[in-house]
């Protein structure tokens, strides 16, 4: 069963909220959808909310990083928000550190981080 991740447009940002554990195919689908829409909606940034993920394996982590790098190439920013403490701990032990990807505590923080960032640019 294919699990669609809802992607909401919120002003200049896109917000993707992962609501359950995703299969590898779902993740790839999410990657494609985000990379397409970021240009279609002329978004300045993408927020991926992973609060509901209680496991982050190497594929998921790599895909998130790829999403961030691809979106940068498409001219926007990415912030991963809502990584759980236990998940973060497990990730660094596996060496999955999402290098070069913005992170924030939760959605609110992520929005604050982006607003701050774009304010300083403009």
């Amino acid at each position, binding site marked *: 069963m294919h699990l669609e991740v809802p992607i909401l447009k919120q002003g200049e940002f896109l917000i993707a909220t992962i609501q359950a554990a995703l299969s590898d195919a779902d993740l790839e689908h999410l990657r494609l959808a985000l990379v397409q829409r970021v240009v279609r909606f002329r978004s300045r940034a993408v927020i991926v909310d992973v609060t509901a993920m209680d496991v982050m394996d190497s594929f998921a982590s790599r895909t998130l990083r790829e999403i961030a790098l691809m979106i940068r190439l498409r001219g926007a920013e990415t912030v991963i928000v809502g990584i759980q*403490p236990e998940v973060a701990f497990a*990730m660094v032990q596996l060496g999955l550190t*999402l290098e070069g990807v913005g*992170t924030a505590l939760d959605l609110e923080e992520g929005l604050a981080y982006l607003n701050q960032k774009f304010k300083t640019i403009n």
Partner: protein
Amino acid sequence: MANRQNPPRKPLERELGQPEIPRNEAPPELLRELVAHLRQNRTQLREEWLRRISETRLLTAMTKEEIFAEATSVYDSYVEALETGTFEALQAYARNLSERIIPRGVETHEVIGIVLLLRDVLARSLFAKYQADFEKLNRILDAYEPAANRIANTVAVGFVQERERVIRQQQEAIRELSTPVLQVRERLLILPIIGVIDPQRARQLTEQLLRGIRTNRAKVVVIDITGVAAMDVTVANHLVQTVEASRLLGATVIVTGLSPEIAQTLVTIGVDLGKMNTVGDLQGGIEQAEKLLGYKVVPVSEPR
């Protein structure tokens, strides 16, 4: 790790190809005779034992009077254990004794040494008494040796167990006073680390910090390691992991108070500290954290 096992040993007699000497349960009258002998010669044997103890320079941490008092009780419990064949009382005494002498720096080899000395002193006296009657000596020793060895065993195990208990207790105490995660300003945490960091503690620290970041919604964390004397590869990597995990939660980590020695070690072992934000001391770290958070601290007026 600890459960390395020795291969099972065959009985000594068969190994050496000697004829088996029949070993029966010690008849009670023999044991009674033995105990009576030890009771009768209590003063003399105890003196002999004490002489041997001071000769071999054991228990140097204790005074002569203390050794005398302890030796008397050990001797009496020893004879009692021989007589009754029950070791509970002796075990309790050994534990109690260990509790008193461990803090004074008495070592395991000393405790085992004195018990073995007592065993030898008593065995000698048996030899002397029964030297005319070899068969009887043999039977007496049959009764004496297993009991004596069990006593030595009991005391040694009791001492070691007590020591381990003390060590465990201290480890727990250290862990408990471990590490507070403190909020010094809105969204700013400090984590002062003091003492030795082992992998278990490092893990606990990281978990505490990550939880603290979430509950306090922290943006910046200052980890102060002024109180950490030494750091090896494992611990350094744990520190790096803590920094990375905090970043995944959206918090920036500033490490402060790296001593010259630790800096030297880290450079020598080549730990990648590129991701780490380091500032000389805790004050500098807090100042930088305030800057990151957009605080500006100015004196309100001249100090009164």
